[in-house]
């Protein structure tokens, strides 16, 4: 396998995924916020809430239309650039991916059409139901892709079949209900809620700063701030759950995330708030440590040690020795179906991935050429390879977490001043809300970097190394398609930004006075002349 091709395939997938995920969170979050706005419209009958649903729905629509196309290419990339991975994982990956496609195209897209074009064709209740179905559909389609990703982080519910050379399902429920899949789904979905809330709050703040659309902006701000304050608390909670899961099932990722080189000594083990990790020297520079925090934070315990990278490398060497036996037995079994070889394979099966990893450094990538002389060097290189890039992991994680806590503060202050009707006096908060619009998207990108960089060197943690997963393209082909994607996706982003700025600046259509809709909600909420009263 040409390593240039592997690296280019990784770069291409990382770029397309990061581009795609600039659109996804807004879709996940805006839909439920739209549903909440429409619910108020149905309850109170006030026109302004219908205007809110339609205006924010228009911005959501721009994002949805452009964003949906960016996801499609990734589904094809599995087949074109990651054919070995697709063969190895197809049995497991195929089902969730197919369900995701069905959810996205049938449920989500059908109801999105009804949501936009059904205002005059459906009853109020019917339209509200459609909006909720769009929200549910978009989040459920995310669920399935995260179930598949959960398997790559923590492979449960499947086993390796040495006759077909692929992972095969043993338990679909174990896959869907794996704790990793669950926590991933909730963290990602709620991260979308945070993104949607910040988007609405930030643009509303912009109107307030310019004293435009004040009735509209004040209500939108109030709803988004309350929506966001609970969502941001939930995203932090789920982040903690994911961190603990990484400690349990992906110790190398966790150690890199926290910059832990040496196994810690409880209970005083410090949490490193700041450091400059050096992957080559395997140490941190300029550390700022807070003692007694790491154990409870990561393992939820004062008495448990957290394994460090140096010790994890030693353990990887033992796994590699066993993995080499597993892979050699597998080769022999695939040639002559020898039951003794199968028995040996079964004995060391759990470490098979480490054998594949060692193959990369064996002479001519042939494990049978390993000798007592060259084995130690191969073990050293393989063990080093099992650790992800610590600098990227450490800082990716910290930037995401810092954003998370900043969101809690901004939403809480926004909710507080909105509830006290004192928002317009807090111009600094309005400005902060406006400038914070892109931050949740950036936090999501850091989140994916943490999740996927931290999983390296595996595509399926502990089972299939990344370098073995790619297709055998040429470097030229990969560079050509990479440039094509970058140009195309950059054009999508430019179009999105242009349209978003254009329509956000234009603002909502003003209605003279909110009229109660026939048969809707209690009349107490509809006061004639209400819209003219300036909100303050």
């Amino acid at each position, binding site marked *: 396998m040409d390593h240039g091709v592997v690296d280019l395939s990784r770069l291409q997938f990382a770029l397309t995924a990061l581009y795609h995920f600039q659109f996804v969170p807004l879709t996940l979050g805006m839909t439920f916020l739209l549903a909440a706005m429409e619910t108020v419209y149905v309850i109170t009958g006030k026109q302004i809430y219908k205007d809110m649903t339609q205006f924010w729905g228009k911005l959501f629509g721009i994002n949805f239309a452009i964003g949906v196309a960016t996801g499609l290419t990734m589904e094809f990339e599995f087949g074109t650039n990651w054919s070995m991975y697709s063969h190895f994982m197809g049995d497991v990956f195929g089902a969730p991916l197919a369900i995701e496609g069905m959810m996205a195209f049938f449920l989500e897209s059908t109801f999105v059409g009804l949501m936009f074009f059904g205002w005059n064709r459906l009853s109020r209740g019917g339209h509200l139901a459609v909006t909720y179905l769009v929200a549910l559909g978009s989040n459920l389609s995310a669920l399935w892709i995260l179930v598949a990703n959960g398997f790559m982080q923590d492979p449960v519910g499947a086993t390796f079949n040495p006759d077909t050379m692929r992972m095969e399902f043993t338990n679909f429920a174990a896959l869907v209900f794996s704790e990793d899949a669950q926590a991933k789904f909730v963290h990602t979905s709620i991260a979308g809620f945070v993104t949607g809330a910040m988007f609405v709050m930030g643009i509303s703040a912009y109107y307030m700063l310019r004293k435009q659309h004040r009735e509209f902006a004040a209500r939108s701000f109030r*709803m988004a701030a*309350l929506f966001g304050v609970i969502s941001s608390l939930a995203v932090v909670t789920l982040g903690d759950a994911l961190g603990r899961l990484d400690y349990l099932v992906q110790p190398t990722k966790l150690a890199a995330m926290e910059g832990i080189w040496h196994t810690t000594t409880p209970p005083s083990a410090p949490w490193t708030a700041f450091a400059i990790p050096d992957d080559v020297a395997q140490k941190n520079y300029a550390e700022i440590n807070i003692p007694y925090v790491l154990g409870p934070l990561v393992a939820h315990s004062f008495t448990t040690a957290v394994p460090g990278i140096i010790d994890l490398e030693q353990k990887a060497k033992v796994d590699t020795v066993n993995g080499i036996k597993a892979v050699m037995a597998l080769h022999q079994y695939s040639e002559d179906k020898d039951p003794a070889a199968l028995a040996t394979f079964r004995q060391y099966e759990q470490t098979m991935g480490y054998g594949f990893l060692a193959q990369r450094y064996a002479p001519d990538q042939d494990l049978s050429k390993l000798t007592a002389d060259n084995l130690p060097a191969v073990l050293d290189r393989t063990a080093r390879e099992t650790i992800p890039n610590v600098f990227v992991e450490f800082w990716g994680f910290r930037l995401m977490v810092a954003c998370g806590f900043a969101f809690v503060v901004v939403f809480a202050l926004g909710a507080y001043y909105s509830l006290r009707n004192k928002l317009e006096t807090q111009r600094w908060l309005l400005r902060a809300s406006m400038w914070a619009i892109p931050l949740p998207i950036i936090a999501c990108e850091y989140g994916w970097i943490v999740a996927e960089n931290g999983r390296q060197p595996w595509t399926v943690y502990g089972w299939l190394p990344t370098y073995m997963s790619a297709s055998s393209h040429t470097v030229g082909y990969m560079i050509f398609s990479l440039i094509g994607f970058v140009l195309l996706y950059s054009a999508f982003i430019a179009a999105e930004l242009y349209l978003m700025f254009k329509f956000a600046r234009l603002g909502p259509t003003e209605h003279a006075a909110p009229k109660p809709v026939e048969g809707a909600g209690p009349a107490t909420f509809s006061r004639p002349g*209400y819209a003219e009263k300036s909100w303050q």
Partner: protein
Amino acid sequence: MTRLLQLIGLAAVLALSLLFAVVAGDYAPWYFAWIVGTVMIVLIATCGAVLFETQETSRADGRDAGF
């Protein structure tokens, strides 16, 4: 009689919800948390808007509209 049937119906919904919560709590705690949490987030945002209208009504009536 209708009241009684309504009551029985609601009691059945309650019992089913509890059963669902117990099963989901065992097998899918985070999925369950997402369902409950999302409903709560939407409801709180909705209540915030309804409260906004009440505050506006109070203000229009000359009463203190602060929270």
